[in-house]
């Protein structure tokens, strides 16, 4: 099986290897201050799992079905289960390896930039560091495989993989990740220094006003809610004098690895579900 996989996919493997070398070379010569390039590379790195899912995962079975070669492969003396075992094993290993290498190179290159400026926990830096990129890569290829097995058309499978992967990532990063652990809050005085958070913390929402009675007024205090002395034209300084504070909710920087672990675990579970579906599609469904 390994020989078949190598013979069928060696061009993809060589291209992936070439991309990695090109990226490393590019970063070696690139000055670290060019913001646009940094952002481009951030996005590129976010796209790496997607590249794997689209160009290797999705066509794996869809192409076999489209060209009818599955009937060749599955009538050799190799059971479909064994065929899928080998394909998935190699695919997961390569996806993990490639995802990890790209992440390592980019993390090494952008470490100083990230530690100085943005929060490691915030969207963007979080997604290209640590272990989550490996989990994304593995999930993306396996998702591609199962979508290809369902739809049996290469282009359709690629488009669907793109949509499904993006949807899962957006939902998890945007809606679920902020609640992995209950956020901390900090009350700060209203003033020029307001909004100062511990180093590297991830601010979850805009600051809200808290009155002296402990009531949270939300992002604005209307003139009817403000103390009589501050009406009309509620000003921050007046509110501050009457005992108002700002409340900030955030995730502290030292939760970085905990969050990486939780998110990776989530993707491992998703991957396991998708793998189970892939076996169902290949072994029990009619060819």
């Amino acid at each position, binding site marked *: *099986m*390994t*020989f*078949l996989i190598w*013979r*069928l996919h060696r061009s993809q493997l060589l291209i992936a290897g070439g991309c990695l070398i090109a990226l490393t070379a590019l970063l070696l010569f690139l000055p670290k201050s060019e913001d646009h390039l940094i952002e481009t590379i951030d996005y590129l790195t976010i796209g790496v799992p997607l590249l794997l899912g689209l160009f290797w995962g999705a066509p794996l079975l869809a192409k076999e079905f489209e*060209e*009818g*070669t599955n*009937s*060749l*492969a*599955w*009538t*050799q*003396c*190799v*059971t*479909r*289960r064994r065929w899928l075992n080998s394909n998935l094993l190699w695919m997961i290993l390569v996806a993990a390896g490639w995802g990890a290498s790209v992440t390592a190179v980019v993390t090494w290159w952008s470490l100083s930039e990230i530690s100085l400026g943005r929060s490691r926990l915030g969207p963007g830096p979080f997604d290209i560091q640590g272990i989550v990129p490996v989990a994304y890569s593995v999930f993306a290829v396996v998702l591609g495989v199962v979508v290809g097995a369902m739809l049996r058309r290469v282009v359709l499978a690629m488009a669907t993989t793109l949509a499904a992967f993006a949807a899962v990532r957006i939902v998890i990063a945007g809606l679920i990740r902020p609640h992995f652990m209950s956020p901390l809050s900090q009350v700060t005085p209203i003033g020029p220094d307001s909004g100062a958070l511990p180093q590297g913390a991830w601010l979850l929402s805009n600051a809200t006003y808290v009155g002296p009675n402990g009531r949270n007024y939300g992002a604005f205090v209307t003139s009817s809610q403000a103390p009589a002395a501050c009406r009309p034209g509620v000003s921050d300084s007046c509110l501050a004098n009457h005992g108002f504070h700002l409340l900030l909710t955030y995730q502290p920087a030292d939760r970085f690895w905990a969050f990486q672990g939780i998110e990776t675990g989530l993707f491992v579970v998703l991957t396991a579900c998708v793998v189970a579906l892939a076996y169902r599609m290949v*072994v*029990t469904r*009619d*060819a």
Partner: protein
Amino acid sequence: MSTASAIHTSGLGKRYGSNWALQDCSVSVPPGHVTALVGPNGAGKTTLLKLLVGLCAPSSGEAEVLGQVPGQSEEFLASIGYLAQDVPLYKHLSADDHLRIGIHLNLDWDSDGARERLAALTIPMNRPVATLSGGQRAQVGLSLVLAKRPRLLLLDEPMAALDPLARREFLESLAAAVADGGLSVVVSSHLLHDLERVCDHLILLSASRTQLCGTIDELIAGHRSLVGPRRGLSEIEPGLTVIKVTQTAKQTRLLVRVSGPVLDPSWEVAEVGLEDIVLAYMEHGERPPVAQLVGLGRAQ
């Protein structure tokens, strides 16, 4: 008893949604035969072959191939060779690549035999198969299935895209492989003409049902063409099964299945060629025979 059969099916059916691609198929083929699987397009030939090699699971009935239920066991897969419609191969790989892959995917693999066959046909071994002609690709496909040393070979319309010369070469290769012995073959085609020379057994599917199954000699011996003065179908002697009726102003022509000699002396009795028998059954399959007879009866 069924273990003696190369193929034995009873009530085999496959349904896709609400359509039956194959229905109530009961056939039996003893080993060592070359069987032609014929029928019009969409008659269920591909479905039957896929069921027999275990690529599909039946919706009803059962199949036994070489005494095993078709499925995904190495033992079963080792005993069959399947060449699907349009000869699917990995386009950008060469014949040589395919043969080397075969070594890794099979327990028993006759690489030398396959190389000799392809060399004798002067087929380029190192060019991507996409650049070969249809005839050459079909020969590569045949060599690959033969290299598995199967006990049963199932070929789905292997000659559909070939020109007459390539067809003849393909059939000669197939006949040579069968002559080596120990091999049962099923070849499907919508053209009987191609297969008549190499086959000794026939399965006819039409409208997703089995119309005929038997040796070609039996089928020819069991059918007669009758020509006589025009008459109604009710006047035809019992013991004859009418397959096809052609009425002209003065004459009635019948194609009938006989179980003994035709007794009515007013008929001119003649033997029928296999192609005529098959065509008659194909028409028969498209229109249910009962409706056909009733309709004609009223016309009298």
